[in-house]
C-alpha cells in the first residue's frame, strides 16, 4: 500500500509555536533590546509594567502580566506591543515572543477585541459543547470584533456547556444563547446576567442529606 505523504501531517494540531513552519530570515540579525530613545511607550503602559516589575525579586517575572497589559492596550501581542514591553523590561523581543507564543491567551496574530472562549473539553463536550461552539461561530459570523476560540477546560464544568465572554463565565448555555451573547457584547451590557457564574449559589452548600 503506497503511503500518501499528504496524510502524514505533523504539528497540524497547532504546536505551541505558531508560525513554526514559516521560513526564518537567516540574514537578519536577531533584534536587540529596543532603544528607549527610539521606542515610544505610552506612559500608562510603562507605569503598569514597572509596577509589576517591582513586585518580584527578579524583574523578568513580570513578563506575563506585562504581556497581558500590552495585549489589553494593543488588542493583540503585535510586534509593536512586544517591542514596547521589551523596551520597558530591558529584554529582547525574541524572549518575549517565545513567552507569548507558549500561552494560549496571548495572540501573536491580529484578533477581535472581544474574546469568546467556548470550553470544548471533556465535561462540556459531554453536555453538547461542540454544537455550542459551532453555534457561537455562526452567531459571531465574520464580525471582526469577535474572537471566538474553542478552549480547553476553563474550570467551570458545573455550568457545562459554558463560555468565557471577555473573562465573564456564563452557562449553562443553549445554542439560542449565542445570539444573545453577541447582542449583549455589542451593546456593552453585562453578558447574560442570569447565567453568570458569580451569581450562582454553590451546589454543595445545601446540607448533605
Amino acid at each position: 500500500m503506497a503511503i500518501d505523504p499528504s496524510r502524514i501531517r505533523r504539528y497540524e494540531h497547532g504546536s505551541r509555536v505558531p508560525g513554526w513552519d514559516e521560513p526564518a530570515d537567516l540574514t537578519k540579525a536577531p533584534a536587540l533590546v529596543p532603544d528607549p530613545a527610539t521606542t515610544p511607550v505610552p506612559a500608562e503602559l510603562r507605569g503598569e509594567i514597572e509596577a509589576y516589575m517591582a513586585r518580584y525579586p527578579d524583574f523578568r517575572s513580570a513578563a506575563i502580566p506585562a504581556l497581558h497589559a500590552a495585549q489589553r492596550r494593543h488588542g493583540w501581542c503585535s510586534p509593536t506591543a512586544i517591542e514596547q514591553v521589551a523596551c520597558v523590561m530591558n529584554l529582547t523581543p525574541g524572549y518575549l515572543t517565545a513567552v507569548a507564543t507558549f500561552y494560549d491567551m496571548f495572540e501573536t496574530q491580529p484578533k477581535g477585541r472581544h474574546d469568546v472562549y467556548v470550553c470544548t473539553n471533556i465535561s462540556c463536550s459531554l453536555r453538547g459543547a461542540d454544537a455550542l461552539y459551532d453555534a457561537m461561530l455562526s452567531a459571531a459570523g465574520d464580525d471582526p470584533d469577535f474572537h471566538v476560540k474553542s478552549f480547553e477546560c476553563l474550570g467551570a464544568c458545573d455550568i457545562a456547556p459554558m463560555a468565557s465572554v471577555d473573562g465573564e463565565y456564563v452557562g449553562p448555555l443553549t445554542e439560542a444563547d449565542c445570539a444573545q451573547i453577541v447582542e449583549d457584547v455589542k451593546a456593552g451590557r453585562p453578558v447574560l446576567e442570569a447565567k453568570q457564574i458569580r451569581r450562582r449559589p454553590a451546589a454543595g452548600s445545601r446540607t448533605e442529606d
Partner: protein
Amino acid sequence: MQLFYDGIDQPGLNTLAVYRDERGGYEMLSRALEMDPADVLSQLQASGLRGRGGAGFAMGTKASFLPAGNMDKYVVCNADESEPGTFKDRELMQKNPHLLIEGICIAAHAVSANKAYIFIRGEYDYVATIVEEALEEAKAADLIGALELWVHRGAGAYICGEETALLDALEGKRGNPRLKPPFPAVQGLYQGPTLINNVETLMNAPIILRMGGEEFAKIGTERSTGTKVVSVSGCVERPGNYEIELGVPSRHLIYDLAGGPLDGKRIKCWFPGGSSAPVLPGTDEMLDLPYDFDSLAKAGSMLGSGAIIVADEDVPIVQLALKTAKFYRHESCGKCTPCREGTNWTVTMLERIDSGEATPMDLDIMASVCDQIMGNCLCVLGDAMAMPIASMIKHFREEFEAHIEAARERNDLGLSIPQVNRDDHAGPGDLLQADGAGPTPAVV
C-alpha cells in the same frame, strides 16, 4: 461535616466585614503568629493533611523539607486549576478568598517564608480580581504583616499546574517543567526554598489550627484525613462541588449528591480524579469504592484533584478517548520527546480507529505508546494521558474493536486486514487484555 461549604453563600463573605468580624476569620493567623513556627508546622504534620492538588503528598511533611535558616523562602499557592473536570478552587476562591489568604500567611509563618505568590490561571480573570480585592483589604487592615503577598495571573497553559512548570512561568519564562530533584522545597522559585500547595490545601491550614491537628486527623479515614471538595460533572443531574468526608462511598457522591446520570441512564465509566485518572467502569463494585486516596489507588485509579467526570452509556468510548488525548496533545509543552510525540501519535491512531482505518492490533500499539511514555518524561503530563487511555482500552477493548468494525463497514473499507498473531507481537502484556480475559486468539 462541612468545613468549607458551611454558609459559603453568605453574602459578603469575600469582605473583611463578614469574614473577620462576623465569622472570626484571621483569628487563627494572629494565634499562629504568636506561636513558634515549629509548633505550627507540627500541627500541620499531626493533621495528616494530604495535598489536594493531585499528587496527594502530605502537606506537613512537604513543608518540613524546607531548610531552616535565615534566607529568602517562598510560598506559592497553586491556583492554576486546569485539570479537566476540576472547579473546586474557582468556587472556593470566588466565595471565600480571605480563607486562602489566611492559610497562605499561616503556611508562610510555619516555614518562615517572607514572600508569597498566588499563581492563578489567566482564564480565572474575575476570580483573580476578587482575590486581589480581598488582598488589598487585608493589606489595608494590616493583617498579613511583613509577608509580601501578590496575585500573579498566568496566561493559559495546563502544564503550569505542574509545580516546576509553574515556577518557570512565575519567573517569566515558558512554562516548561524542570528536572527533579532538586525538589522545589530545596531549590524552587528563584532557586530558593519554596513551598507549593494547592488552594484547597492551604485553605485547610486555618481550620487545622482552629481544631488542632490531632482533632482534624479524626475526620475521614486514617490515611486520608479531613474533608474534600469534590467536583462532580459530566452526565449528572446536578453537577457541582460537594464537600464530603474522605471515605464515603463514591456512589453517594454520584447518585445522592449529584443526582445520578441524566434520565436514569446507566454509568458507562467515570474518572474518579480528573481526566488524568484511569477510568473506572460503572459497575456496582466500583461505585461502592470508598472515595479516598488509598481505596481508589488500590482499584487501579487515583483520587487526583478530586474531580469525578461521569460518562453515561450513550457516550461512545472512542470519542471520550479522542477528546482526552486531544487535550493532552494540545497541552504538551514539547520539552520531552515521549510526551510530545506520544500524545500526537495516540490522537492520530484514535482518529484512525474512529474512521475504521485501524486494525485491532493498533490498540496494542497504542497501549505500547502509552507504556513508553509512562515514567520517561520530566513531568507526568504524558502519563496523565497514557493512564486514562490505557484504562479505557483495558476496560472497553470490545467496544473499540466493534467501533473499528462498524466504521469500516460504514466507510466501505472492505474486510478486516489480517492481523499479526498477537502472541508473537512484543507488546506490553497485561495492559491490553480486558478484565480477566486471556489473550484474544489471533485472527487469520
